């Protein structure tokens, strides 16, 4: 039985010096066979397992993770959540996720620190202005809250932005989605892990997949560093390493894996109470609850699995940050890191069946997967359980690269990829 987190449990455990908290999830050895196995214990993988158990009564399932849960891109991203995408298919997908975020802490009994502080996207040239206005209209037609702001309104909403017309890329306006915001990345992975574990899901860490066993055109199981696991359904949610797993099954995916960098500053008092993103100069910034500025940089243009990235990418982002926010000129950066993102040619994700029966892929989220975590898990669980996509992820199938029915969110997604 899982103990509920509440103010009473906090007081009770304080009396025993916090030494008797129940573990949030078990550390089991893999069983011989499962109904389904999820490869990848990040937010998306754990959410998939959670919804498989909760909504589809599949409790004899496991999540295998080569490192520790939430240690990949879940723990490396800049935690921005928004749903202001241009195309109908994307709007449906990302707003589905945003609606789940709004009550996720209550549902999981785990504070994911979801904060609807608003996300602002800046326009720096006339084409940006036209694109952002078009996107605002498209969003509103899809029932997604969006407003277009003039440069003066941008300044009013976030006073530290330099809106002088004399800077290299002046701020001409922007869009604002008030329901958007941020969440605590680790808490999302841990909350889903705790919830899934309570329903009987085995979360197996330090267990790397080494091969996928096929019998003709169907899956029979996976080879791992902890032995062979028999299963008829394998859902791969391996982000930057999706192609590595696909190659094991003899599949090719339309993905390229590239390093994406981010950095945080030393902690300071509250200075920016929203999230500001800028496509043209590629700089986005928010402030964590600890007070650090969280800054997202860009991707390198070459394939690499090194989790490092190039120096000039960070330099370019910081140049833009300094011009837009002169007040940050004396800030010192504490940490910089890279994560490997799997980018699709159309910058939209893949949540799909494959040509191999029982093998499913949830990948291609590229630089912006965190925001979709709950929705992605929910829809991928539906796809695995029913062997058919939900109507919200039907457009995000692998076959779109054959039919040509791409969901082209390059640029339209409000950030450069």
């Amino acid at each position, binding site marked *: 039985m899982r103990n509920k987190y509440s103010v009473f449990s906090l007081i009770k455990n304080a009396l025993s010096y916090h030494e008797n908290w129940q573990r949030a999830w078990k550390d089991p050895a893999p069983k011989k066979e499962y109904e389904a196995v999820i490869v990848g214990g990040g937010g998306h993988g754990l959410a998939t397992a959670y919804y498989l158990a909760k909504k589809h009564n599949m409790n004899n399932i496991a999540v295998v993770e080569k490192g520790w849960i939430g240690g990949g891109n879940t723990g490396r991203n800049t935690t921005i959540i928004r749903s202001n995408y241009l195309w109908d298919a994307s709007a449906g997908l990302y707003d589905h996720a945003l609606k789940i975020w709004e009550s996720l802490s209550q549902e999981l009994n785990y504070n994911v620190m979801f904060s609807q502080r608003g996300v602002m996207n800046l326009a720096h040239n006339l084409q940006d202005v036209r694109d952002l206005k078009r996107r605002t209209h498209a969003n509103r037609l899809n029932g997604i809250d969006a407003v277009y702001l003039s440069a003066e309104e941008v300044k009013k909403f976030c006073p530290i932005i330099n809106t002088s017309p004399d800077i290299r890329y002046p701020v001409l306006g922007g869009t604002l989605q008030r329901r958007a915001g941020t969440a605590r990345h680790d808490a999302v992975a841990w909350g889903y892990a705790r919830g899934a574990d309570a329903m009987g899901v085995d979360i197996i860490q330090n267990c790397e997949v080494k091969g996928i066993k096929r019998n003709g055109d169907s899956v029979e199981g996976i080879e791992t560093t902890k032995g062979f696991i028999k299963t008829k359904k394998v859902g791969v949610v391996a982000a930057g*390493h999706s192609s590595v797993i696909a190659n094991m099954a003899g599949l090719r995916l339309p993905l390229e894996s590239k390093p994406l960098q981010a950095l945080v500053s030393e902690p300071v008092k509250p200075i920016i109470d929203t999230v500001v993103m800028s496509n043209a100069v590629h700089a986005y910034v928010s402030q964590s609850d600890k007070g650090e500025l969280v800054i997202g940089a860009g991707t390198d243009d070459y394939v690499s699995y090194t989790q490092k990235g190039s120096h000039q990418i960070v330099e370019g982002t910081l140049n833009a940050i300094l011009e837009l926010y002169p007040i940050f000129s004396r800030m010192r950066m504490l940490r910089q890191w890279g994560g490997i993102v799997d980018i699709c040619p159309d910058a939209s994700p893949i949540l799909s069946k494959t040509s191999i029966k029982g093998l499913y892929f949830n990948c291609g989220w590229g630089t912006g997967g965190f925001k979709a975590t709950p929705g992605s898990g929910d829809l991928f669980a539906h796809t695995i359980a029913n062997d058919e996509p939900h109507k919200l992820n039907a457009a995000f199938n692998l076959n779109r690269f054959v039919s040509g029915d791409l969901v082209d969110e390059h640029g339209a997604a409000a950030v450069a990829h």
Partner: protein
Amino acid sequence: MFLINCPYCGERDQQEFKAGGEAHIERPKQPTELSDDEWAEYLFMRKNIKGVQFERWNHAHGCRKWFNMVRDTSNDEIKAIYKMGEKPPSQ
């Protein structure tokens, strides 16, 4: 970030170069006879290898010439560089 030995200009900073993706993807000889599956394979599907991969690079801020590179994508180590049209080195 790493140094790249351009076959025409010598060793330069990676910043001067542009990555051009997977090498040795042959343009279909009879495009009109290709099926949709074959088009998808040619246009979109990539090996995206973690390990030794064959790639095209362009010295965009230098001589602007294209060349091929063999690189280990797990540690960014460059194994070989050879000109366009030359036979790729065997591994």
